[in-house]
């Protein structure tokens, strides 16, 4: 009786094993897809709470959009295609990194322009200071006076 119970338990355990194995399997490909989904959702802005990314936000829309990203990755879409999908619906605003366009030129070039402008201003200022600091040449009158004070020979050395 006891033996039979033990056998039954063993048989049940054996039957359960493949089910367990089947459940534990999908780690490799899924974790890659999950990492991609997280990376993508960090690049996209949530429109409801605008200072959070879709990855950070708990707003319902952000949850739906995360689901959309996962679905599209599962459907074999590339990252660019998924981003294009979001931009087509919500505009460039969803991108934390705005694209280089005629309307965003100032945004992209602004810091460089400011840096160049600031540097040019600095050079200008330093040059102006330097010419100011240079000792002006002595006038004839001053040279004569210096010579007299030194009691020398007409100030030839001071030229």
């Amino acid at each position, binding site marked *: 009786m006891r033996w039979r119970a033990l056998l039954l338990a063993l048989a049940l355990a054996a039957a359960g094993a493949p089910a367990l194995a089947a459940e534990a399997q999908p780690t490799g490909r899924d974790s890659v897809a999950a990492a991609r989904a997280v990376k993508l959702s960090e690049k996209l802005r949530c429109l*409801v709470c605008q200072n959070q990314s879709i990855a950070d936000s708990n707003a319902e829309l952000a949850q739906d959009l995360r689901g959309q990203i996962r679905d599209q990755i599962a459907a074999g879409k590339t990252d660019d295609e998924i981003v294009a999908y979001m931009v087509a619906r919500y505009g460039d605003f969803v991108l934390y990194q705005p694209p280089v366009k005629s309307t965003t030129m100032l945004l992209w070039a602004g810091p460089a322009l400011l840096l160049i402008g600031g540097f040019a201003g600095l050079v200008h200022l330093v040059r102006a200071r330097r010419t100011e600091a240079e000792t002006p040449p002595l006038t004839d009158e001053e040279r004569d006076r210096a010579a007299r004070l030194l009691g020398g020979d007409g100030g030839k050395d001071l030229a």
Partner: protein
Amino acid sequence: MRLKLLAPLAVFIVICGFLLIGLWRDPREVPSPLIGKPAPAFTLTQLHEPAKTLGPADLKGQVWLLNVWASWCVSCREEHPLLVALGKANIVPIIGLDYKDEITAGKRWLTDNGNPYTTSVVDRDGKVGIDWGVYGVPETFVIDKAGTIRYKQIGPLTAEALETKIVPLIRELQKS
């Protein structure tokens, strides 16, 4: 020399100008890329007659409004009297998109608050909402005869927006 001293002040005033403009702009109003584009297609079941469906294709040839609403949406209550009045004026078909809502709750909400909609359709999982770039319910779209989105109101309708923008736009589109 005097002018040079005034330069920082001028820069300061310009920056103040930009900041001041920024104060009056609503950061929630993100320009929709869908304006001027064809209305995204959908076929959804109707709220009151689940056996029937409706989509933009059925409305081709007429100017119509799509109003995204939900029974859980607080600011929908704010705009609802305006929609009811617009519905009574019978200027334009108003299609309601019941967004991520329970069907019974949606129906009850319309019974309680008045139903301005020609037809309401149910977007249970919000997929159609995503296609239309919906992010802040309520939202209202104006679609022209060719099926192109011409205007989008984000957030509740206001009497001012209706009078100055939406109704004139509808009349103009209906003439063409």
